[in-house]
């Protein structure tokens, strides 16, 4: 509670009237009001108003040139029969599970490995963290050189006698999506690791000591001390992962543009190409609404947690 007015606390608290404060000292100075309203205006212009338009546009058919025509739920009906939409949704779910799940598990694993302060630890942490600062586009290009038919991965496979596994990794429908997930993971694990490292640091060492005295082995201590203590970090990581997964665009766009034959298409890339390349702005908006609906649960729970914390 950082409520700050000079006269507060002296009056024996009859609940202050909601909304406008009556007494002069409590009146919000105009400057303070401006402090809130200017940023709010910026966000209203660039986010809230466009978001409302986005929802409305999902109910229209629009080529971006003539006026949009209202078509009700037709766009959503069209999705039911759209095979690409089905592929993109399935890929998005797969992406959430693989990219999200693996980055959480591996992020926690690396955090556990690198949690103890000891000589050289800073270097190891920095090495794992470094890719986080690269743009996903740069990351994608790095890995494209690895995946090329005459790229490093195939050369390595050949040199260890696994020629049979040689592959056009990004051009094959069966491998494209997985080949795109790996660079995304390479970049995300360090990020999740940092979140978990902070969480692990917050655990009272006495808990581990007590468990040790009671004869708990490393696995039991992890299961019954570490994991329960990490509950709030887990919630954060979960939100970050779901929101990031649904936003994932750059890495797919730079590596495959969703191809070949939509085999690495995510809802985000499908939405972008539908809107800005096929110029079907109404249908594209409807796809964006689907992404919003998928993200909604996580956004809402994140906000609820923030709401509790904010007071």
């Amino acid at each position, binding site marked *: 509670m*950082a*409520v*700050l007015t*000079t006269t507060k606390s002296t009056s024996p608290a009859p609940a202050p009237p909601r*909304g406008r404060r009556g007494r002069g000292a409590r009146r*919000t*100075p105009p*400057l303070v009001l401006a*402090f809130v309203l200017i*940023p709010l205006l*910026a966000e209203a*212009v*660039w*986010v*809230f*108003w*466009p*978001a409302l338009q*986005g929802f409305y546009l999902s109910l229209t058919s629009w080529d*971006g040139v003539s006026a949009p025509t209202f078509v009700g739920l037709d766009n959503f009906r069209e999705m039911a029969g759209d095979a690409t939409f089905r592929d993109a949704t399935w890929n998005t779910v797969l992406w959430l599970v693989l990219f999200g799940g693996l980055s959480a598990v591996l992020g926690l694993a*690396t955090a556990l490995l690198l949690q103890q302060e000891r000589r050289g*630890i800073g*270097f190891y942490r*920095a*090495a*794992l*963290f*470094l*890719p986080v*600062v*690269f*743009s996903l*586009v740069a990351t994608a*290009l790095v890995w494209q*050189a690895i995946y090329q038919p005459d*790229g490093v991965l195939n*050369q390595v496979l050949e040199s260890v006698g696994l020629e049979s596994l040689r592959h056009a990794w990004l051009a094959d429908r069966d491998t494209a999506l997985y080949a795109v997930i790996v660079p995304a993971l*390479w970049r995300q694990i*360090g990020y999740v690791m940092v979140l978990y490292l902070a969480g692990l640091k917050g655990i009272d060492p006495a808990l581990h000591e007590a468990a040790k005295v009671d004869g708990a082995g490393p696995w039991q201590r992890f299961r019954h001390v570490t994991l329960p203590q990490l509950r*709030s970090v887990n919630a954060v990581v979960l*939100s970050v992962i779901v*929101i990031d997964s*649904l936003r994932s*665009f750059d890495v797919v*766009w*730079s590596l495959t543009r969703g191809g070949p034959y939509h085999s690495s298409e995510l*809802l*985000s890339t499908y939405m*972008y190409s539908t809107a800005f390349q096929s110029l079907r702005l109404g249908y*594209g908006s409807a*796809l*964006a609404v689907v*992404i*919003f609906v998928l*993200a909604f649960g996580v*956004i809402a729970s994140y*906000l609820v947690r*923030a709401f509790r*914390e*904010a007071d």
Partner: protein
Amino acid sequence: MATVHTPSAPRRRRLATAGFHLGAGTLAVLWLLPIALVLVTSVRSFDDIAAHGLGSRPHSFTLGNFAQAWVDGGQQRALINSLLVTVPTVLVTLALAAMAAFALSRYELPFRRSLLLLMLGGNLLPPQILLIPVSKLSELMGVYDTLPALIGVQIGFGVGFYVFVLHGFMRAIPPEIQQAAVVDGAGPWQIFWRIILPLTRPALAALSALSFTWIFNDLLWAITVLRSDTKMPITAALIGLQGQYVSMWNVIAAGSVIAAAPTVAVFLRFQRHFVAGLNLGAVK
């Protein structure tokens, strides 16, 4: 390590340490390998790569690739565009966010909690829902395909998150400090500028480092509100480079190094702030 004779405690500890460094070292090398590959590729000649392959030991050394990406590939202009967008965006966003966070955390405004969450909520929206309206809006305002449009949307979309983080930080500043200033007759501006802002510096430093990389690395907003190649920031230019120099990996690698250098520099210089920023951002 299950030897028959139980080794003495110090010896076992030494073995464990060696095992740790072996494991962590392997992991670190694995992680750095792709980066090393790009660095090496960026200084090899095209003929060398064509003759020996990307994965081979380098047989040449040249800095010409950087020149090619920088001049012919348009990386120079793109990097300037990126900085022209990133620096003002970071400054304005953090200034606006600090103002709003100050007002919401230190004054009893009506609906302050709802306002705070509204602003945070805007930042959590999937950008896809905004792309089409934002591109149309920037056309309507006559700023489509200009850097101010990109700056505007980055500020509007980002500000909510920073307000939330800074609010959490400013809330923790003890009220007595502010009360003393009020007694001395300080107005809100003085309180903000002289007292709260200096105390918020660690959080601002952390968020600056973080937001610099986020904005610098953005692709989606750039290709949504910009069209001309000459306006594009470095991320979009890198994709252009990929199309322009198909399978000339030496040039593409040099371009990637150029595109990554500024954020790596920020990271190495402000590593502590950076990591602190990531953790500030996590709602606990």
